[in-house]
């Protein structure tokens, strides 16, 4: 892959206006697939959650999952969309080995939901209105594994293997209208938009919404045009950008790449591009061409979906609060300052803190853990804090252990390391490794006496009023106790000895 030339970001924005468009696929967490009764499960043995429909055996026919339709309507309503009086399934025809029928059952000109909008706040505190064009139902494809050649890549593979367990898993694709005017904040807006979608589908309970598992996937369209130009520039579509930070980086990269080409008088090829997290770059994929003639037509094996007013209203009544409303409420409940709260949102830690508080932690200590130590570790490992191998309940447990004085901050960080390494919950790590703070005064006194014996003048100094002299003894005691002592208690005991 030839290294792309990039234009300085600020310079690119001086010259060009950025227009983005986002397509987000949300995988629904129904028990069964979109068109058959096979389990909608992640990570089972290959080709065990398949039936004649999933592997497109001749003669098989689809049957629509009612819950998937209701979930799709709920998503549409949460995005402020109109719900179609008649929604229709359509076949999108193209050949690919992960697509058993060689057509995808999707929706075309009659999607279940259309014309919505979402208020999205970016890190600067500014709010943008993103217009939603449509949300439609479709099915996922199977999973290809490329074998031989240069390890798992499609290029140079000797052959490929297909697992259809994921084939037919229900998806809702949410498509925005072109988003104008975000300027330098376009990358942040893209990420913040996907974060909002994730919050919504999670709050609705219709998706597990875990990006690392592909429950929420984003394709980002980017085009540039000269400021003041009317005609939209040629866009590229960067596929499957699967974390919030990648979305931000990929959009930024495309802006800089396209600007460099346009500034030199070049033209942008309309194509799909792939994001490489490791290289921090996109690469050219398949050009859009005549071959993208999907020959959509109404799916003759399925009948239209005509949701009743009653159904729509009952789903509307069950909608959770809007993300912006929810945020205001949470900030009030937790008593966070604007700055503290924005840090939490921008670090994408809202749900973690909600769950940590629900598990019994104080809001401030939940915030400190997630935006402090955990964020630091995640950053070092180049992942989202949510992806760390610790649950909010475990973080709450850790916080409670500290608050109760059972362990101190230093020990807590040590415990955290073991929890992340998979040794179990904080309490079990503390028990197994004997990391509890020593609160037995006799053990502490023995250590203090031993230390005082080596520094006999300390007690005298304290009695003379030089209390800070205790510090040297505290340090020696802590060292002797390998950190598992409560320094405050050690200090108290030393002062008591001096008073005797």
């Amino acid at each position, binding site marked *: 892959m030839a290294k792309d030339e990039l234009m300085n970001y600020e310079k690119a924005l001086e010259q060009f206006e950025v227009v983005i468009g986002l397509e987000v696929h949300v995988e629904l967490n129904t028990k069964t697939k979109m068109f058959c009764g096979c389990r909608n499960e992640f990570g089972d043995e290959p080709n065990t959650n398949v039936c004649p429909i999933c592997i497109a055996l001749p003669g098989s026919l689809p049957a629509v999952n009612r819950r998937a339709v209701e979930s799709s309507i709920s998503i549409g309503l949460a995005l402020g969309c109109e719900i179609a009086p008649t929604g229709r399934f359509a076949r999108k025809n193209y050949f690919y080995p992960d697509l058993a*029928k060689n057509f995808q059952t999707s929706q075309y000109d009659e999607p279940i939901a259309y014309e919505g909008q979402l208020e999205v706040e970016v890190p600067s505190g500014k709010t943008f209105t993103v217009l939603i064009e449509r949300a439609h139902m479709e099915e996922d494809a199977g999973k290809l594994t490329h074998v031989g050649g240069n390890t798992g890549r499609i290029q140079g593979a000797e052959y490929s293997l297909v697992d259809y367990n994921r084939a037919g898993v229900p998806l809702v694709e949410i498509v925005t209208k072109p988003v104008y005017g975000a300027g330098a904040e376009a990358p942040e807006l893209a990420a913040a938009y996907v974060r909002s979608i994730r919050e919504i589908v999670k709050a609705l309970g219709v998706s597990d919404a875990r990006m690392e598992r592909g429950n929420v996937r984003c394709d980002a369209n980017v085009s540039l045009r000269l400021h003041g130009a009317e005609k939209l520039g040629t866009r590229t579509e960067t596929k499957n950008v699967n974390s919030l930070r990648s979305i931000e980086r990929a959009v930024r990269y495309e802006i800089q790449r396209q600007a460099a080409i346009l500034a030199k008088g070049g033209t942008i090829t309309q194509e799909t591009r792939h994001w490489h997290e490791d290289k921090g770059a996109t690469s050219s994929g398949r050009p859009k061409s005549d071959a993208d003639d999907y020959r959509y037509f109404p799916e003759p094996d399925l009948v239209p979906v005509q949701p009743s007013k009653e159904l729509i209203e009952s789903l509307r009544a069950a909608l959770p609060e809007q993300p912006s409303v929810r945020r205001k409420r949470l900030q009030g409940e937790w008593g966070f300052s604007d700055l503290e709260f924005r840090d939490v949102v921008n670090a994408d830690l809202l749900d973690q803190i909600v769950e940590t508080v629900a598990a019994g932690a104080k809001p401030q200590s939940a915030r400190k853990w997630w935006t402090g130590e955990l964020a630091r570790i995640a950053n070092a490992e180049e992942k989202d804090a949510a992806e760390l191998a610790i649950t909010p309940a475990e973080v709450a447990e850790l916080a409670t252990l500290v608050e109760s004085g059972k362990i101190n901050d230093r020990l807590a960080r040590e415990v955290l390391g073991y929890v992340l390494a998979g040794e179990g919950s904080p309490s079990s790590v503390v028990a197994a490794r004997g990391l509890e703070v020593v609160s037995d005064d006799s053990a502490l006194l023995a250590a203090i006496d031993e230390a005082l014996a080596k520094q006999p003048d300390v007690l005298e100094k304290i009695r003379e009023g030089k209390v800070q002299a205790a510090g040297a003894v505290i340090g020696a005691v802590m060292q002797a106790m390998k950190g598992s002592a409560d320094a405050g208690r050690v200090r108290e005991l030393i002062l008591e000895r001096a008073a005797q």
Partner: protein
Amino acid sequence: MSELIRKNASELVDLLSSGEVSSVEVTQAHIDRTAAVDSAVHSYLHVSPESALATAAEIDRKRAAGEKLHPLAGLPIAVKDNLTTTDAPTTAGSKILEGWIPQYDATVVRKIREAGMPILGKTNLDEFAMGSSTEFSAYGPSKNPWDLTRIPGGSGGGSSSAVASFQAPIAFGSDTGGSIRFPAAVTGTVGIKPTYGAVSRYGLIALASSLDQVGPVSRNVLDAALLQDLIGGHDPHDSTSLPESLGSMVEAAKRQDVKGLRVGVIKELNGEGFQAGVKARFNESLRLLEAAGAEIVEVSCPSFEYAIAAYYLILPAEASSNLAKFDSVRFGLRKAPDGNPTIERVMAATREAGFGPEVKRRIILGTYALSSGYYDAYYGSAQKVRTLIQRDFAAAFAKADVLASPTAPTTAFKLGEKLEDPLAMYLNDIATIPANLAGIPGISIPNGLADEDGLPVGIQLLAPAREDSRLYQVGAALETMHEEQWGKRMIDFAPELEVR
């Protein structure tokens, strides 16, 4: 030959239930007949004597033990080879599926198994049911038992010839544009296309999903009614199957009353292009009906002029998508391409080798009809013609309770006669196609022999959607009048086949 094989299915049912004959005797008689004549007729692509006899013996044992059995228990049946069967290869007449043993039974196959009907074998058809003569079967054509140099009709010529040559008392057909009714007309048998959705399509290898319908092929109207009563009804696996019951066809067939019935003669289907003998027999039957108290009225369906054109756009369009699943990945043929064996090339080489010329023609025609820039003119317009045809039927059924026409313009043509002229072949279906486009039921019953060639002629009756029972009532009445007039069944005029 055993007299058992000449009996109508309804007679065999009585003999079986009274214990006068055993299912093994009936089944063996048909197996023997096939051994004697099928090398000449070629009705079957696959015969299953062992499993048929095993089912028969099981039913005989249960009957002897006094178990309650389905009325059709023990009656053997032939199954068109585009219905999936787990114990016999299912090819749909195509090389691309040679040797495929399906992993599931079609719903109608499951129902006959549950009723205890032995399956004699799988009958021949034009490849994927695309044709009117069985000449497009990849395994060679079936012959018309009335004249072995002529076609038995298509696509279901295997089932019609099996029933007409006493190799099976009853059979399954499928009708997309006349594939049950045209073969019935040219072989002197009865064929019914039920209302779209009256019988499940699950496990029917799809040709055109919005036109396909499974139905009975028999020598007698009551026989067909027995089978439709068994296989009809809602199937959760087929979303287009009707939710409601259409009542008892057997009762309707026994009612046989035409007094006061208004029979509409479709002006557009009784003129130009219709063979003299076909017209003569048709007009005689109208007089019989009139004599029995029916009122004959003329109706006009001007849009039928466009029916064939619409049909040959909708069918190829849907078929091009339905047949995309034959890609060498999960079942069926795989052909290594010349040169670099990429998956794309393997798929293309497999489809080139596995599909016959008519299938390729229609797939490419259908791809064209759906492709961008042509969709509106072709597929879109054809779907509108469908609306016009439904309106014509609605107007006609306001004046008449049933409509009547010759089933086909001519008697059976010679093998090879129309092979090089697809358009001439398509014209055979002029009278049968409108019912598929509108989803309404149609029956073809024997209507005498044409004077000029002594070959069978059929009369078609059509009823409004869901009014299948009218066809059984009027068809059985006309059949009785004919048999009284002729002194025997029409099939009894058929020449004796040379027995090997």
